[in-house]
């Protein structure tokens, strides 16, 4: 790049444009593979936060993954940003479907105006990307994902690897934009021998045990890119002076949304509990020793589709609180609820959430927090370790967190090393005595079972990923394995996610059903006159009683 020819302001602007272009590119691609129709609104007044004048939402986890892959660099010659889209079946087979490549070549266009022409052409290129992402074969596959297969994504930075696409893959060019430092090109290489993947050929299999991201279900998006209005100067001269725009670095780790009321809350902690965790059925405050932090969820939820394990009916009726191994959930699965059926969402945690929350760990947590019980692969402990670094104090600090859970009263799973301190909760004596370590917990390391291979176990982040793991920090995390009452490990070797999914939606209480409700109401009303008569008879007694209270 000939920096001398480009003013420093232009160079800064250009780098920023390229960076945000890369992030938006990833968003468009990933959102196009979620399996849902996307809809954003036009706004005639500039909101100041929409890059390239396009309403493209930012899914925080996706931004986080992209930033992680880029690691502060920009696409350059030999350093391309790639988004790999693959499919994983319920049997565990996976196949790469597409690689979207954002590349830079050396052909420079010195004459082009950065703040004006380049910006507008990048906007046009994003529109082209929106259009093209709907016409490759993977789009239709992704719209039908759910039971038989799921669509995954992986972002990497570096050399493009097309070998996983099989023979005869085809390429479609989305477009190019010349800049003074090189030409940005965006293209997609896609597998064509998908014939056997036609969804019509899938037999009806039990739902897979996978992680499904439901990104667009009732959740407000956090404010996305903190851009400021781009004011252009119109006119003949085109000597556009681009007003300086603050480059806010951290876009994604901002506010988090709340949860649907039925979800349970969770917490994660360090291993210094001294009393058994609570087993109550409603909200309680549980002071915790040690480091506690919560993973707040922003815009994605993970839900499990459990394999049909023949677990008894849902009359156990309570959702289980999960202690997520709070490792970086890498929600590389992009599945919306499949067309075949609703997958009830369960809370999950985005990896970046932990980073954002480090500083907040020490404060009492209000609201509902979610955490995912996501199986982790060893590479995924990066944010876990990051979170643990943000220690709020010595293990002896008393921290509070709020549990909202509904768990049976007779949980008796032994917990090895973690207990809760000073819990003032009912049924505390029934609570498990300690908490299992993360490695023993099936949620973190899910047992292998034919249908339950976690998609995260596949090397989503493996080869070539620059998101290197920083090692396991199991010591800093514990999984509180709450065993629901009346369930026993030995009979049902199912993991927490399955259980949760199975019993997340218990049948409605009969007293809440309309018929019975109406009936009892009618009975109540009928008995009123009688009751009133009795009270009237005893009115003197009642009055005397009231007197004593005053």
């Amino acid at each position: 790049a000939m920096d001398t020819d480009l003013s420093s302001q232009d160079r800064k602007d250009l780098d920023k444009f390229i960076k945000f272009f890369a992030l938006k590119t990833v968003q468009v691609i990933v959102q196009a593979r979620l399996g849902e129709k996307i809809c954003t609104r036009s706004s005639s007044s500039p909101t100041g936060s929409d890059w390239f004048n396009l309403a493209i939402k930012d899914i925080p986890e996706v931004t986080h993954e992209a930033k992680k892959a880029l690691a502060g660099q920009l696409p350059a010659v030999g350093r391309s940003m790639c988004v790999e889209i693959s499919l994983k079946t319920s049997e565990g087979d996976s196949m790469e479907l597409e690689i979207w490549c954002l590349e830079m070549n050396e052909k420079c266009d010195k004459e082009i105006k950065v703040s004006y022409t380049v910006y507008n052409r990048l906007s046009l290129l994003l529109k082209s990307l929106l259009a093209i992402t709907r016409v490759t074969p993977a789009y239709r596959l992704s719209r039908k994902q759910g039971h038989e297969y799921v669509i995954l994504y992986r972002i990497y930075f570096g050399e493009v690897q097309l070998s996983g696409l099989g023979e005869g893959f085809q390429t479609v060019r989305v477009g190019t934009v010349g800049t003074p430092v090189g030409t940005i090109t965006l293209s997609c290489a896609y597998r064509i021998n998908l014939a056997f993947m036609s969804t019509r050929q899938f037999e009806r299999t039990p739902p897979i045990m996978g992680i499904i991201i439901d990104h667009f279900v009732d959740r407000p998006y956090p404010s996305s890119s903190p851009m400021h209005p781009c004011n252009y100067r119109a006119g003949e001269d085109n000597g556009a002076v681009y007003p300086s725009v603050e480059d806010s670095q951290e876009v994604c780790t901002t506010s988090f949304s709340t949860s649907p009321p039925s979800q349970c809350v969770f917490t994660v902690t360090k291993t210094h509990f001294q009393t058994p965790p609570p087993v109550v059925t409603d909200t309680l405050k549980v002071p915790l020793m040690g480091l506690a932090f919560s993973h707040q969820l922003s815009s994605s939820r993970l839900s499990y589709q459990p394999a049909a394990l023949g677990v008894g009916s849902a009359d156990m009726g309570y959702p289980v609180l999960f202690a997520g191994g709070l490792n970086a959930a890498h929600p590389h699965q992009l599945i919306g609820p499949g067309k075949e059926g609703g997958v009830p969402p369960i809370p999950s945690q985005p990896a970046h959430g932990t980073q954002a929350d480090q500083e907040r760990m020490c404060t009492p947590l209000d609201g509902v927090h979610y955490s995912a019980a996501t199986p982790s692969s060893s590479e995924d402990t990066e944010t876990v370790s990051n979170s643990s670094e943000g220690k709020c104090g010595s293990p002896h600090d008393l921290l509070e967190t709020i549990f909202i859970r509904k768990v049976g009263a007779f949980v008796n799973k032994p917990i090895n090393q973690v207990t809760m301190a000073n819990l003032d909760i009912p049924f505390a004596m029934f609570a498990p005595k300690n908490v299992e370590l993360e490695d023993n917990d099936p949620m973190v390391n899910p047992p292998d079972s034919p249908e339950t291979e976690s998609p995260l176990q596949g090397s989503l982040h493996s080869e070539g990923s620059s998101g290197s793991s920083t090692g396991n920090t199991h010591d800093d995390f514990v999984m509180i394995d709450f065993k629901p009452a009346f369930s026993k490990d030995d009979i049902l070797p199912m993991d927490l996610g399955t259980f949760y999914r199975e019993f997340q939606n218990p049948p409605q209480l009969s007293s809440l059903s309309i018929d019975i409700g109406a009936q009892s109401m009618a009975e109540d009303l009928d008995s009123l006159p009688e009751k009133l008569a009795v009270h009237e008879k005893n009115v003197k007694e009642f009055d005397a009683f009231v007197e004593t209270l005053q």
Partner: protein
Amino acid sequence: LFFPRRTCCRAPPGAAPAMNCRAEVLEVSVEGRQVEEAMLAVLHTVLLHRSTGKFHYKKEGTYSIGTVGTQDVDCDFIDFAYVRVSSEELDRALRKAVGEFKDALRSSGSDGMGQISLEFYQKKKSRWPFSDECIPWELWTIKVNVVNLANEQERQICREKVGEKLCEKIINIVEVMNRHEYLPKMPTQSEVDNVFDTSLKDVQPYLYKISYQITDSLGTSVTTTMRRLIKDTLAL
């Protein structure tokens, strides 16, 4: 004398595009009930690339641009989905034009050949008494051939095939857009209506008009070329 902005402007002589107007032609063969969706898919894809957010001019000639939202549209009669600009006004305008085209195709006879054109133009103000001139700078023509199918199985195959064909068309459109050829210069506030259609409340496409022709079996244009200025039909 005052000329309202939406005055019909006279087309340059002849129906052929002007010299420096680029022209692209796409051809599709569809079943009768697929005509509307196929046309909308193509027109919306073109207009997605040829619409910006609303301009808001401020002092000193600066302007800010509104935000364009997008949405996915699934076709009912074709195995296909496309992205369009989130603007109900624009969608209505296109549906109206495509609806008329479809009706004309149907009533023209069993041959079912025709073409619909989307032309982007700039207005050049002329002095009174001459009306403004419309200078096209890009012309998209979609040639349609309506086929009749005998049974359900053929229809099913047609759904898929037309879906695949439309994917190819979208790729073609994007290729053209990527050439970054002539686009009108960004206008000053006084000129904006000569370049953009500012009548919509949420987005701002380049000035465009849609017209169509029905061809008879001899390949000549039988019915009079019906030029509709969509803005006029929408104007109250």
